[in-house]
């Protein structure tokens, strides 16, 4: 069911330090209405869909959302890695 591809769906480059943005991204990633929750919701709601088109589109949207899971942490990782932000620094802000 899962195949890991050693590449991103969309290229990402982060060129500035922005801990506030990093905090938003991590919330969007695993937070209450984040990608992780949304992907799981789509992929479970699909079981109750009555028509083939709905089954197809919900499955594929669920897949797309879980692909974003691979892009966002990389984005987050870059924010931290390339800018000397420490994790403790990150949590103090906001």
């Amino acid at each position, binding site marked *: 069911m899962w*195949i*890991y*591809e*050693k*590449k*991103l*769906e*969309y*290229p*990402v*480059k*982060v*060129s*500035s330090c922005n801990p506030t943005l990093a905090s938003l991204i991590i919330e969007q990633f695993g937070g209450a209405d984040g990608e992780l929750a949304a992907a799981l919701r789509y992929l479970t709601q699909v079981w109750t869909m009555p028509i*083939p*088109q709905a089954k*197809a*589109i919900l499955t*594929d*949207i669920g897949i*797309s959302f879980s692909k974003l899971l*691979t892009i966002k*942490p*990389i984005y987050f*990782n*870059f924010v931290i890695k390339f800018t000397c932000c420490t994790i403790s620094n990150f949590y103090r802000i906001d």
Partner: protein
Amino acid sequence: MNMNRKDFLRKIQELEFAVIELNLFLDTHPSHQQALADYNRLTQELMNAKIMYERQYGPLTNFGYAPSQYPWQWALTPWPWEDDYECKEDMACGYMKKS
């Protein structure tokens, strides 16, 4: 084809983007013949591009989806978060640049 790894990867990403969009459209319009024809054409192109890329730069997938040269390339080629993607004009990262 004489492309460096990043350009090649970007070509694959472009093809994949088009294929994903057509896929989502076809999910709700399964009988759209033009969209299906486009999807099939680009899918063939994408599959060929991936095979060529994997031959030159190592496997994109593991667990039996692609063979590897010696030594085991899966462990040695760059990971997605290790690639520093070039920022091109048409990319969304443009606004992140320090001016």
